[in-house]
């Protein structure tokens, strides 16, 4: 019996998410709707090295705030369903813009793999990316790939299995928000930590979200019982 695991596929629109999803799952796809909204939800399955992997394609978004239903769905899935691995697909030829989403996912403290897609375009634009340093500095594996040519899919799968087995350490990314903001984060963290919320969400992440005035998170907070 294969071990089950869930992989969420996140990324900006046009970063090649659909192509990668097809490369991974082939014909084994199932299309439905996300509960309560008319946003298409695609899931697919594959078996790899003793794992039965469910790949969930999250809506393409630029960030994880509560501005659009797409963003809410993507964030909700990561926070509530806690997939075993989040693969964030990043357009290597447009790193700066794409990393904004990556940073937000990394801050959530979930296991993340960065799929550095469109390496061919980055190369043709003469962008040189120091992948080992990038991986080291953000604390997550980075797999270069060109999904259009189905290059890098095997390497990504190998990395997914490694993360699932706990062979790769991923860490929560800590961004230094500056002294004043850090002081406020620390204050909120202190109030959050002793409550039952801390069991469900990383306190620092929650504090940052609250300071951002994230309506979704504030709405959730109003619904749950806090002890």
């Amino acid at each position, binding site marked *: 019996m294969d071990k089950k695991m869930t992989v969420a596929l996140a990324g900006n629109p046009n970063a090649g998410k659909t192509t990668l999803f097809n490369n991974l799952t082939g014909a084994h796809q199932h299309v439905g709707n996300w509960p309560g909204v008319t946003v298409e939800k695609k899931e697919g399955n594959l078996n790899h090295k003793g794992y039965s992997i469910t790949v969930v394609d999250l809506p393409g978004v630029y960030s994880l705030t509560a501005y659009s239903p797409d963003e809410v769905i993507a964030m909700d899935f990561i926070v509530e369903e806690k997939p075993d691995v989040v693969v964030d697909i990043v357009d290597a030829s447009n790193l700066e813009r794409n990393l904004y989403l990556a940073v937000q996912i990394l801050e959530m403290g979930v296991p993340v793999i960065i799929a550095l897609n469109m390496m061919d375009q980055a190369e043709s*634009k003469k962008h040189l990316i*120091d992948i080992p340093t990038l991986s080291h500095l953000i604390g997550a594996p980075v797999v270069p790939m060109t999904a259009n040519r189905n290059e890098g899919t095997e390497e990504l799968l190998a990395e997914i299995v490694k993360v699932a087995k706990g062979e790769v350490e991923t860490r929560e990314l*800590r961004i230094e928000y500056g002294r*004043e903001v850090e002081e406020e984060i620390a204050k909120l963290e202190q109030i959050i930590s002793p409550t039952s*919320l801390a069991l469900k969400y990383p306190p620092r992440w929650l504090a940052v979200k609250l*300071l951002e*005035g994230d309506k979704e998170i504030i709405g959730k*907070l*109003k619904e749950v019982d806090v002890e």
Partner: protein
Amino acid sequence: MNKEDILRATDASIAHLKNIYGDESETLIADARYGFISGLLKDVLKKPPVDRVTVSDKIDKVIVNRWAGIPIFMAIMYGVFQFTFTLSAPLMGLIDRGFGWLGGQVATVSPNWLGSLLADGIVGGLGSVITFVPPIFLLFIALSVLEDCGYMARAAFVMDRVMHKVGLHGRSFIPMIIGFGCNVPGIMACRTIENPKDRLTTIMINPFMSCGARLPIFILLAGAFFTQNQGLVVFSMYLIGIIVAIIMALVFRKWILPGPSGHFVMELPPYRRPTVSGVLTHMWERGRLFLIKAGTVIFGVVILIWLLSSMPWGIEYASAESWIGQIGSFLAPIFGPCGFGQWQAAVSLFFGFLAKEVVVGTMGTIFAVDEGILGGALATQLGWTPLVAYAFMVFCLLYVPCVASLGAIRGETNSWKWPVISLLYTTAIAWIAATLIYQIGSLL
């Protein structure tokens, strides 16, 4: 704790940040993330130059330039001190005259001992410290502007390369910059450094960063002995502090706390226009500590010094026969090789352990004069030369962190070992540095 508390605290935090920066905290957080990304990309991405360059990129091209970055940082710090002195000199003169007049009024109060307590002790001692409110607040205004506009993050970025050489990281430079205000928050700011050895090293070198409390000593002596180059001399103190800190970081990382250093991305947040309320809030947060200390610790110490100067009964005030003279005379020989082996200097340094402003306050009480002529008194009554004054300044810069800093080190390291080590090694370094300056300077 319930969720209403959390939501209330959130609103309070957002309002506080809006008051300081004039921006929604949402924007601040997004800016910091972009700052992280642009710092990250400087390390990992090389691409051919493009034509679309933002103003911020253009400024950064110069400010964080490989060669120009450090000279620019030094020029800016020098400008900060010139600004501080030029603007504060007339204000200090005014306060000084005020205390001079006050001292004359209260000296006639009877009985005699009360007049002496008021005039020599409180007005002389406390007055000589209060006089330094203008330069301290002006320095804090300048530092707040640099911090709020985004320059300090660049300074840390520029220092990153130097810090790497000594086995630390540019992020360690931020607590050091905070230490310019006061070492206590500087030491606490080390919490953001995750690697324990990096963190401990950054904590241990923080007291070398010249805090606001040392400024009165420098201004007093620079004003009296280096009239032409005040700004330069005080600037050199800050520089010596940074250099000693960096050398000691190397020593710690190499021999005492060896091991690989943690890696961080240096954030380069966008430049932003500082708001008046933000700058004033920061100035007040830092300057407040100075006023509170003046009203509590320094006030108490000044009275203690007056008492020790007046006892035993019947001796001449603050003479070598007084109790304070006896304590001072006992300690003075230690400072002989440094050039300031007089009991007055020894006792000032001894009590300066409580808070460094006390060094000036003690002298003010002993010489029973206010700041305006205190510098002159050191030259005429103790026979100090500019060389001795400089050695004394360096000693004050480097020796024992004040009690509050040691307390912070104790709290942050959760052990008594590190504050004790800090106390001993900083004093040893101060003694060696002052002795070297005095002895070599005497030969020249």
